[in-house]
């Protein structure tokens, strides 16, 4: 009689490819934002393949050299800056800087921060207090200040260094997020159940704890990537990001500031690119988070 059983209904719904089901649920703004992100990622990756774009000085683009401070037009879609460089080309290359830095931050944050955070949240005790003390110290440096110091004193300011420094600085906040999550997950009964079965601690960490920390961490990564792009923008604006002539959106805005009275376009376009990219990341990130909270509320 023990087998008085509930039936599990198989989902009768037609299984559409997950990507289409996913997109179908998006509001139109989010679709737009997601498309924009895809566009700039593609543009960045394939930038070198577009004829004329590979010129490090961004002088000629598609339709040849331009004059200084040209307005938007057919030969240079977004116009040229005060060094007669094509703005569209520079924006595409600037995207490369922004995205690389964001990627580095997310990667280092998720991998190292995620691991350390999950570890100390799971084992607690002395390891926990030590690691968190270090994290607190790094966080007590105001981000930008520490960055300024490190970047300047390193002397070299190419993309690798910038990405590495920002990536390193991203570890502590991820550690915090991961630890908080791992703490609450470790209190859940399935972790106790795993221990009661006799699973080794290391296996529990990798199989039970980390998979449950990751989704939260990835949702955080979306928002964090936006913050990092803003940070790189601010650094570049101060002249502390990648060294010219490599273009970066912040550098472009700063350079255009001088001639604001004459020609606003060189300031407008990179600003728009920056704002819209960050907005898209926030928008898609928020949407993913909402999706997740709906799902976890259904649990």
């Amino acid at each position, binding site marked *: 009689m023990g087998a008085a059983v509930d039936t599990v209904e198989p989902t009768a719904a037609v299984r559409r490819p997950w990507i289409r089901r996913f997109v179908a649920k998006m509001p139109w703004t989010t679709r737009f934002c997601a498309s924009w992100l895809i566009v700039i990622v593609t543009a960045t990756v394939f930038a070198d393949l577009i004829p004329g774009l590979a010129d490090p000085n961004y002088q000629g683009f598609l339709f040849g050299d331009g004059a200084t401070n040209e307005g938007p037009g057919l030969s240079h879609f977004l116009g040229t800056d005060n060094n007669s460089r094509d703005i569209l080309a520079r924006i595409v290359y600037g995207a490369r800087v922004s995205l690389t830095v964001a990627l580095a931050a997310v990667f280092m944050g998720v991998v190292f921060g995620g691991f350390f955070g999950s570890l100390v949240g799971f084992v607690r005790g002395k390891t926990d207090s030590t690691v968190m003390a270090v994290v607190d110290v790094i966080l*007590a440096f*105001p981000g930008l*200040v520490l960055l300024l*110091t490190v970047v*300047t004193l390193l002397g070299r300011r190419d993309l690798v260094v910038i990405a590495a420094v920002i990536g390193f600085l991203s570890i502590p906040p991820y550690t915090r997020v991961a630890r908080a999550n791992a703490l609450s997950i470790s209190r859940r009964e399935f972790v106790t159940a795993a221990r009661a079965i006799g699973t080794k601690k290391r296996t529990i960490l990798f199989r039970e704890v980390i998979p449950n920390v990751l989704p939260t961490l990835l949702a955080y990564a979306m928002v964090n990537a936006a913050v990092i792009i803003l940070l790189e923008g601010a650094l570049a*604006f101060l002249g502390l990001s990648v060294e010219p002539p490599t273009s970066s959106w912040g550098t472009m805005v700063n350079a255009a500031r001088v001639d604001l009275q004459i020609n606003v376009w060189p*300031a407008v376009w990179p600003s728009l690119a920056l*704002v819209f990219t*960050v907005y898209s990341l926030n928008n898609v990130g928020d949407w993913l988070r909402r999706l997740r909270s709906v799902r976890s509320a259904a649990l």
Partner: protein
Amino acid sequence: MATLLAVSFLTFLLVNLLPGDAINALIPIEAQQDQEYVAQVRAEWGLDDPMLVRYGKWLGDAVRGDLGDSIVTSRAVSGEIAHRIPVTGELMIVTVVFSVLMAVPLGVVSAYREGSRIDQFISGSAQFALSVPGFVAGLLFIYVFAMKLGWFPATGWTRISNSISGNLMTVTLPALSLSVIEVAVYARVVRSDLVATLKEDYILSAKSKGLKDGFILFRHALRPSSLTLITVVGLNIGLLLGGTVVVEFLFALPGLGKRLLDAIFQRDFMMVQGITVFVAMVYVVVNTLVDVVYLVVDPRIRKAD
């Protein structure tokens, strides 16, 4: 306290270990031919001592409020900091006060009418504002309000002691530029927290007592929600300090951030060190204050401690 000590030591370590010999800042390259002179200057600045010894000396002075002298201007670092605090301090206070005053009503309206058009509008705007960095907002404000309309000066600073109205004119645009993101952050925090609070049983219970919505909103719901706001404001101080660097640079304000930037470009390591430690101290103090406020506002924590 331990955090501060660690911060100061790390700063010291960073500043001293990384390339870029301080001697370059002290003596022009041409003059460095004179080995004897260089050695003399090195001894004078204590550059020959082992790093730990120098750190010990510096720390001993620092606890007495002496952060050393700038190696570029030879003026006391602490004096320079004190001289520039009013600018950065005013900028930050105006920004935080203005942002909170703007954000709380927006967040409350948005949460109270969750899902309505007004909520969608406020939430959407906040999401957008969150994406506008200070330098873009600042540049926009300069272009519109200073260049086109001419209402405010584009750059510069008037001290309060010189002219109150002039001071207000110069603080408005920088503070506004910083506020764009801050308002968005706070409004989102207030909204999401209030939305959760309004779903609590005790709100339903207050409603079942026949209390008016406004009363419930402000007496019952807002207080628990304000706890998160306080925390976020505290944590954001660090980011805001970074933001002031950018805005001070853009508006050419004689603040701490601008000084730090200059010091970095000049390799004025004493100055960099002093300002960083000072800023870290502000951060730690603010967050301690947040904990204290928390203790006052939330009786549950008071008991647990």
